[in-house]
């Protein structure tokens, strides 16, 4: 509960501080400190030191998994703020509000990682979504930003409608909105429930940009101000996965025996769309958008498998994906040219940043020694553990290989091609944080236990 309340409070604080403080650059410090406090209190909460002892009834249930997920999201946001705080200031005048919205999103995140009631899922998703509509459109004079915002909004609202229909149908059968497993024995689901679950599944797939409900993703990610794309593509996306897995790990774990075929199809489609389309992209930013779809395809395995390995894997995946993507975006934001050619010769002018980028890209591509590898490993392991070794796993493998193609294009540009990159001077903190991320990626790639032990201790 700490996190939900405090993130809301901090959001309000930042919003209000906008009226008192003129200096744009001070907000990121405030936000940074607030985030660190939030992180600390979230961790404290996970060990039972809650400040607010509120009965959450059957709406929220806090678990280690949820707390750890929150921690990951908040910690990622901390890194994000350190790396990209300066760039947020460049988006527009409402810096305080942007940070406030980010805090509101975090509030939504901590709701969807802990909900036990469809109402909370709905509200949580909306709390996440609405600030994102706004952040996407925050570059108000930029037509692309406008367009992205409107597209996102229209489709988001539409998917909300679908989700509500799904929730309603579930309610119609059960008479309540709880997702907790009521009885040990698994009863076969009714038609109505299955239909409702499909609708909820579709809507959540939309949120995590799983194909064929991913169409908004590339456009929105490209149109949105790059800093916010970074935020959306990482923290928000993995949080929705937490919601997703919560939905299907509980009462609806077995969608009438139909889950795996549906999710299997979605996984294949997502991997295919994400990876194949990313191959053709000319802009790194848009490529990353498609890559985020592809990564979502892999994270869908957690939803497919819903077992212990899946949960562990999702945590690891979320972490490594967030770390790597945030770092890449942090570097990308400062580039003038988002095309692949814009990176030509980057290694020469910025060897350190290039090195970090390489680690991140390798992690995204799932090369061993980076956490991305173990994350993918866990996902595949989770899928295979369910006993169905088949086309989808092979497809995942093949598409993972395809993904190497576009990730390595960046590396090729940076290291093997000649070119001049005009890159602004970056602060020591920036570099340090990037190196920290790289180290984390590698450390987790060798000892994932560093992270996953928190699930059990």
């Amino acid at each position: 509960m700490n996190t939900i309340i405090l993130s809301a409070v901090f959001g309000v604080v930042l919003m209000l501080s906008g009226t008192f403080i003129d200096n744009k650059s001070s907000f990121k410090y405030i936000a940074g400190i607030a985030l660190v406090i939030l992180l600390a209190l979230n961790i404290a909460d996970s060990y039972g030191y809650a400040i607010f002892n509120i009965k959450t009834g059957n709406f929220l249930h806090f678990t280690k998994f949820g707390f750890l997920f929150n921690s990951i999201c908040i910690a990622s946001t901390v890194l994000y703020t350190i790396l990209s705080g300066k760039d947020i200031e460049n988006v527009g005048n409402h810096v305080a509000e942007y940070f406030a919205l980010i805090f509101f999103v975090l509030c939504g995140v901590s709701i969807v990682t802990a909900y036990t009631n469809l109402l909370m899922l709905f509200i949580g998703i909306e709390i996440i979504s609405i600030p994102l509509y706004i952040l996407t459109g925050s570059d108000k004079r930029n037509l692309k930003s406008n367009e992205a915002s409107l597209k996102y909004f229209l489709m988001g609202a539409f998917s909300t409608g679908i989700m509500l229909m799904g929730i309603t149908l579930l309610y119609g059968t059960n008479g309540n909105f709880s997702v907790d497993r009521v009885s040990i024995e698994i009863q076969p689901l009714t038609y109505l429930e299955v239909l409702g679950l499909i609708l909820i599944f579709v809507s959540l797939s939309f949120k995590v940009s799983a194909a064929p409900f991913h169409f908004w993703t590339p456009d929105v990610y490209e149109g949105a101000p790059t800093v916010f794309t970074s935020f959306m593509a990482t923290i928000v996306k993995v949080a929705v996965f937490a919601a997703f897995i919560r939905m299907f790990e509980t009462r609806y774990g077995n969608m009438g025996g139909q889950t795996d075929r549906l999710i299997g199809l979605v996984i294949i489609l997502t991997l295919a769309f994400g990876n194949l389309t990313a191959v053709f992209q000319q802009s790194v930013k848009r490529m990353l958008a498609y890559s985020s779809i592809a990564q979502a395809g892999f994270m869908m395995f957690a939803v497919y498998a819903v077992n212990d390995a899946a949960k562990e894997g999702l945590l690891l995946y979320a972490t490594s994906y967030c770390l790597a993507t945030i770092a890449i975006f942090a570097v990308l934001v400062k580039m003038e040219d988002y095309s692949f050619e814009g990176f030509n010769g980057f290694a020469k002018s910025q060897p350190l940043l290039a090195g970090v980028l390489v680690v991140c890209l390798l992690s995204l591509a799932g090369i061993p020694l980076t956490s991305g590898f173990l994350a993918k490993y866990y996902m595949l392991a989770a899928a295979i553990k369910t006993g169905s070794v088949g086309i989808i796993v092979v497809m995942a493998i093949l598409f993972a290989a395809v993904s190497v193609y576009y990730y390595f294009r960046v590396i090729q540009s940076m290291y093997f091609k000649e070119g001049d990159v005009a890159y602004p001077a970056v602060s020591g903190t920036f570099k340090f944080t990037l190196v920290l991320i790289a180290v984390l990626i590698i450390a987790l790639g060798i000892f994932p236990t560093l992270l996953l032990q928190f699930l059990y201790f």
Partner: protein
Amino acid sequence: MNQFSHLVYLIPLFPLVGFLINGLARNSLSKSATGIIGSGVILASFVLSVLIFLEVKSPGFQPVIVNLFDFIRVTDFTIAFSFRVDQLSTLWLLIVTGIGFLIHLYSTSYMHSEAAPHFARFFAYMNLFVFSMLLLVLGANYVIMFIGWEGVGLCSYLLIGYWFKNNDYNYAARKAFVMNRIGDLGFLLAVFWLLAKLGTVDYTEVFARVATLSTFDITAITMLLFVGAAGKSAQIPLYTWLPDAMAGPTPVSALIHAATMVTAGIYMIVRSNILYSLAPFTQAVVATIGLATALLAATIAIKQNDIKKVLAYSTVSQLGYMFLGLGVGAYTGAVFHVMTHAFFKALLFLGAGSVIHAIHNEQDIRNMGGLKKYMPITHITFLLACLAISGIPPFSGFFSKDEILAAAFEHNVIFWIIGVLTAGLTAFYMFRLYATTFQGTFRGTPEQEHHLHESPSAITIPLIVLAILSVVGGFLGIPEVFAPDSHWLEHFLSPLIAKTEPAHLLTHATEYMLMGVSVGIALIAILIAWTRYSKKPEMEEATGAGKVLANKWYVDELYNSVIAVPIQKLGGFLNNIIEKNVIDGLVNAVGKGIQYAGRQIRLVQSGQVGNYILLMVLSLVLMILLIFYGHNLNPIINWITK
């Protein structure tokens, strides 16, 4: 006793040391030092060989196996690096080291015009060759023999391509090596066959356990071994490398392509005679091939104008004889012919070398003539050798050839007829060569004539020695018909030769008749050749059938178009079409396909919200359909998702 036999490892060691010294210190040694080292080590080997021979000759000698170390030892089999001293190997030791030494001696003079490092290189190669040949001969199992087998092939390659600046020589060298390798392949397969069936390649054990092999196995093994022998001993179809090998310096031709290396095949078959005796089919094949080779090469030799080429084809022809002998079971005869042939063929080559040396590397006999007055010693020795090879009694060739022919007659009259015919041809082309070269008048340039001289003693001494051997060598195997029980060689080798059922002995009358016919035909041929070519040598290009012979029955061209060109074409096809377009093309097509798919799929991303939502709704509809109405699709879906 056997004190020297146990030192047998020194015999190959000497040449090896010579090779190392000459090879490594080639830049610092003077020519004379090189010559002394190079020839000296062979002499040392020869001396030791003689000592061992004396030991072996003594009655009651048992073969000595000198085990140096385990070459390859794996769970299934062990191959020892060991040498075997017995009658056969000792005999070959003498031939190899003896003639080898003479040729080395000869080379010190013949190759003297080479620069010191190259001179040293030459001797290094020669020493290495002798070393390999000795390994081949001494090895106590097929693998060691194979080591020497390939080693002589290598040295042959190195020596043929000794003048590496000339690309034609290089091609010839490569051809020799590759053709040898084809034969080696057969040898190797035979070795594997033995290993697979018997788990050993050791002669003693193989021959002891030969009874456990099926007839098919034995036939296969012997056939494969024969393929190896055909490669090394230049039999049909693998003979074409030998004439080309004349590209090397003449001593090389003498050493390798006459006296030693080409006899390796004979050695191997004699060594394996116990196997061959059990494989009548193989024997028939061997005899037929040998005979065919003898005839074919002899016909070709008639129309050759290069002095060395003639000799080369005569070598091929004589080898064919030896195989005929092997094929009809006259192992001793074959060995006997190997020996006599080694004497007179070395002599012929060295004589030819002497001639070539004298007229400054001219090899075309049409540009020679009348050399007998300029080079008396060469002339005489060459003539003796020609007589010997023609099978004129009492020269050595007569006895050995006669033995083979007699055995052939016993076996099959047709063999004998063709054999005699070939013998006639041999006499004809040899004396064509002799007459064209030494009789008549000199047809070269005046400048060449001015320089004509007899060769120095380092060349003539070996000639003389070999000439003596050519003349008297035949007395080692006097046939039964002249003096009963005087065939020394047969006695000497008898412990190693398979005991076959006694051939129905020819009556003395028949035998005399056979001898008479063959000698008569030879004499007639000599007469024709002498009279025809000493006055008016064949100067114009051959036409008609002669052209076919001059062009060696177009066998080279045939091989070229049937084997070499198709292989090259196949390589080109694989390289340019299959590799680039099919296999790599397939790999690249996957990449291209992915890019293409990416290009196409991205069109779905039209940018239109309406389309996006439409697609979402459609997918939703499909999903619901799939779940609720998709039972009919179950097999397909299960296949996809399971």
